[in-house]
């Protein structure tokens, strides 16, 4: 929002004339603006335009992806709450529930890596604890540009420090994740943060606000001008001018979030809360619109009551601010004093900023003037649902067979050394040792395994968590790539002995207005859907991040999958390292020597051509998963490792390295 927007004493921001330039600056296309005028029945004022622009942004409305997201399987006996709430909820038995979601903070992290990553972690944890769960494990999936690119080193250091700085202070263990380097991310890094929490199935809190006249309460930090237009920026393409952007990046305060978590948990023990939602992208606007719309009621806000950190903030700025560590709640009438006492004890702001009404509209007052009056339905669901044109990715060429007849030992050992030292396989210890992976005393298997194992406190149960995708497979063959991403999460979780239950995802893609990119999105989703169906592994939450493109060059399609599973007795779980000598090693599944999109092709053969990746046989994936889980359950195996990046030889090397136990391989 440019400088001249700040009002002098006389003119109010709503007196600004709405010009096509202002509409464009708000990220709305002309036809979208016409729809706004139609819904309003008049020209919107500046504040109303701002509210529509964030609610109809790609980030909040999913307008380019909604049509296809509906096709993903989202139900199953284990699913308590699927997509649509702040996080997904699954039943893990004995009245316990796992609550989890994954969210992307790609654009802010490119502009300011530390704060971008930190606020990404802070935001995803709020999504989980707003549902009434206590966060028990964090993971992150990071993609950076080529290691030799001048910005990569600075971005990696900033992002890792940001994730550690926030997560460690919150006292939630960071138990794993993945990091990849590829030149397609040079101008567009990906920072996807995942959080898993635990709750009781009879104590889940939802966003639907009901009860006309009930008080709407603001809790947490004060409001500043952080991240205004963060929501629209999240899906705005980057051009070189983005460097001069006013510091709109939000700044995180993990200490305040820790207080907010404890205060919310304390209040949630009572029955004072009707509905609660965290203020994420589009802050006060998205939380109040979504809560009221889901509850089928209206909402009236008085911004004079909003605690502000900066002076002379306009209503426009307060509604769009993305200051961190804030929540919006609807309380049962009369329970405000009880709630206020808890938040004051934890040193947090608490203010009644409005009430629920029966008008089905959002009405906002500021400094004695009504500055916005909008219909809730169109705000929440009125964004156009685009059926964007797409062109399928043409089938990739099969990889040429290489002459293996003359390969001798030195070729094999040299190839192994190259792979073990390449950017995709080399040890990530220097990263994950900057994260506290042990706090809360329940981390049974931390970073470095196929899947992390986190005990359900005080029980024999443990959650298995894994993040996976191979973007090059998705670039070559989006359908197979989508299947492979879900199948790999399924394999990694099964490798510990846990039963895969459900997934969340971060769908990172380029500009959907380019047919070939939209084609990648449609086909990746088709593959993901097929795998979720075949493996009984439904989607319960997720996020879409589009327009990941700089100067016209888009990223590889990266549908990052976050899988969660359960093992009923963690004593039976196995790791991926050999535990003792004199044991036999088995390979499950046929080895067909497939080199398309392999690291061998990329790093040993130095060939970046995009050949067809290995195809995924979902029935076989399911059979292998069930077989491996049975073997582990019967205590017949001591270690299991998923064969993925780098293939069989790398998998064997990784199994040897952890406990320094060698192996003898015969090729018959």
């Amino acid at each position, binding site marked *: 929002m440019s400088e001249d927007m700040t009002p002098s004493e006389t003119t109010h921001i709503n007196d600004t004339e709405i010009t096509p330039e202002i509409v464009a600056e708000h990220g709305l296309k002309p036809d979208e603006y016409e729809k706004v005028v139609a819904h309003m029945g008049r020209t919107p004022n500046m504040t109303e335009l701002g509210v529509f622009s964030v609610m109809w942004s790609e980030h909040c409305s999913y307008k380019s992806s909604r049509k296809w997201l509906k096709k993903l399987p989202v139900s199953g006996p284990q699913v308590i709450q699927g997509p649509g709430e702040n996080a997904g909820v699954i039943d893990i038995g004995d009245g316990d529930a796992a609550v989890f979601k994954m969210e992307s903070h790609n654009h802010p992290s490119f502009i300011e890596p530390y704060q971008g990553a930190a606020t990404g972690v802070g935001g995803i944890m709020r999504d989980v604890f707003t549902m009434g769960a206590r966060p028990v494990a964090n993971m992150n999936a990071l993609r950076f540009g080529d290691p030799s690119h001048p910005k990569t080193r600075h971005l990696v250091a900033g992002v890792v420090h940001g994730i550690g700085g926030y997560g460690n202070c919150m006292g939630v263990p960071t138990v794993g994740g993945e990091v990849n380097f590829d030149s397609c991310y040079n101008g567009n890094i990906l920072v996807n943060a995942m959080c898993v929490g635990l709750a009781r199935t009879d104590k889940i809190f939802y966003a639907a606000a009901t009860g006309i006249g009930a008080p709407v309460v603001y809790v947490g930090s004060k409001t500043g001008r952080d991240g205004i237009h963060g929501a629209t920026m999240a899906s705005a393409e980057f051009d070189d001018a983005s460097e001069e952007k006013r510091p709109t990046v939000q700044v995180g305060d993990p*200490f305040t979030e820790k207080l907010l978590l404890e205060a919310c948990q304390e209040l949630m023990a009572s029955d004072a809360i009707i509905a609660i939602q965290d203020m994420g992208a589009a802050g006060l606007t998205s939380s109040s619109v979504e809560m009221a719309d889901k509850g089928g009621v209206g909402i009236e806000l008085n911004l004079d009551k909003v605690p502000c950190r900066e002076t002379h903030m306009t209503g426009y700025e307060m509604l769009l601010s993305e200051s961190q560590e804030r929540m919006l709640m609807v309380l049962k009438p009369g329970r405000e004093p009880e709630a206020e006492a808890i938040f004051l004890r934890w040193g947090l702001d608490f203010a009644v900023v409005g009430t629920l009404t029966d008008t089905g509209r959002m009405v906002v007052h500021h400094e004695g003037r009504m500055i916005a009056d909008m219909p809730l339905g169109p705000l929440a669901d009125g964004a156009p649902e685009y059926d964007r044109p797409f062109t399928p990715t043409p089938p990739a060429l099969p990889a040429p067979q290489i002459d293996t007849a003359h390969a001798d030992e030195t070729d094999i050992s040299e190839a192994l050394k190259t792979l073990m030292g390449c950017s995709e396989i080399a040890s990530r210890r220097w990263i994950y040792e*900057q994260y*506290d992976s042990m*706090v809360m005393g329940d981390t049974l298997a931390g970073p470095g395994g196929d899947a992390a194992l986190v005990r359900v406190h005080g029980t024999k149960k443990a959650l298995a968590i894994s993040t996976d995708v191979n973007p090059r497979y998705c670039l070559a063959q989006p359908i197979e790539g989508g299947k492979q991403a879900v199948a790999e999460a399924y394999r990694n979780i099964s490798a510990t002995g846990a039963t895969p239950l459900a997934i969340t995802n971060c769908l990172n893609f380029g500009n959907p207005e380019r047919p070939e990119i939209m084609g990648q999105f449609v086909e990746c989703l088709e593959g993901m859907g097929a795998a979720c169906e075949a493996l009984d592994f439904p989607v319960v939450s997720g996020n879409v991040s589009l327009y990941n493109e700089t100067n016209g060059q888009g990223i590889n399609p990266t549908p990052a999958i976050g899988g969660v599973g359960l093992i009923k007795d963690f004593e039976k779980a196995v790791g991926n390292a050999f535990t003792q000598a004199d044991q036999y090693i088995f390979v499950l599944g046929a080895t067909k020597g497939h080199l398309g999109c392999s690291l061998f092709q990329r790093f040993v053969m130095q060939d970046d051509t995009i050949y067809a990746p290995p195809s995924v046989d979902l029935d076989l994936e399911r059979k292998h998963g069930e077989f491996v889980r049975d073997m582990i359950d019967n205590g017949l195996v001591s270690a299991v490792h998923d064969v993925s990046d780098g293939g069989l030889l790398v998998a064997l090397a990784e199994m040897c390295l952890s406990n320094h136990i060698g192996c003898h391989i015969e090729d018959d």
Partner: protein
Amino acid sequence: MQASVIVFPGSNCDRDVAVCLEAATGKKPNMVWHGDSDLPDSDVIVLPGGFSYGDYLRCGSMAANSPIMKEVVLKAQKGAAVLGICNGFQVLTECGLLPGVLMRNAALNFVCRNTHLVINNNSTPFTGQYQQGEEVVIPVAHNEGNYFADDATLDELAGEGRIVLSYAPDDNPNGACKNIAGICDASGRVLGMMPHPERRAETALGGEDGKRIFTGLVEALS
């Protein structure tokens, strides 16, 4: 034996240490809020790990000024044992119960990994169940564990056997002088240590080398 755990805003290892204390003593420890000024009689007071006040300004600087700390200092002077783990150790140096200061790690990164430690003094109430000179594995997790004190203080600590725990020479995670991982006061009843014994008190979590700090306390103070 009755234990109390002080909870500062931003502490996050309070529950972990309470689990170990309950396992060792068979009783739930008192969880005492930093804002309270009355501290129930306790045989041992534990200042847990975490990011009290977000570690802002200096780790432990604000926690050291909270009302409850006056009580902790009083009880310590009257002979109660005090155990400061990680952030707790930083609070003990800030409030003057222990000398020196914990500076930023030499490599400027947060470090969370197992470390090899040597028990240099097994005659304190905390280390009675270890062998003199025994090497154990206990994890660390901190950003400011780089212990520093002037030479006179270092010599005094070494001379009086008050460097209770030190990192194995080749395994110093933060650059601390004399590889110091944990020191005690002149009475031996106030111990500050950067490693987290509560994170290594269960085979499911990798090992039990830290457990004997807690069981040792029960034996020494019951």
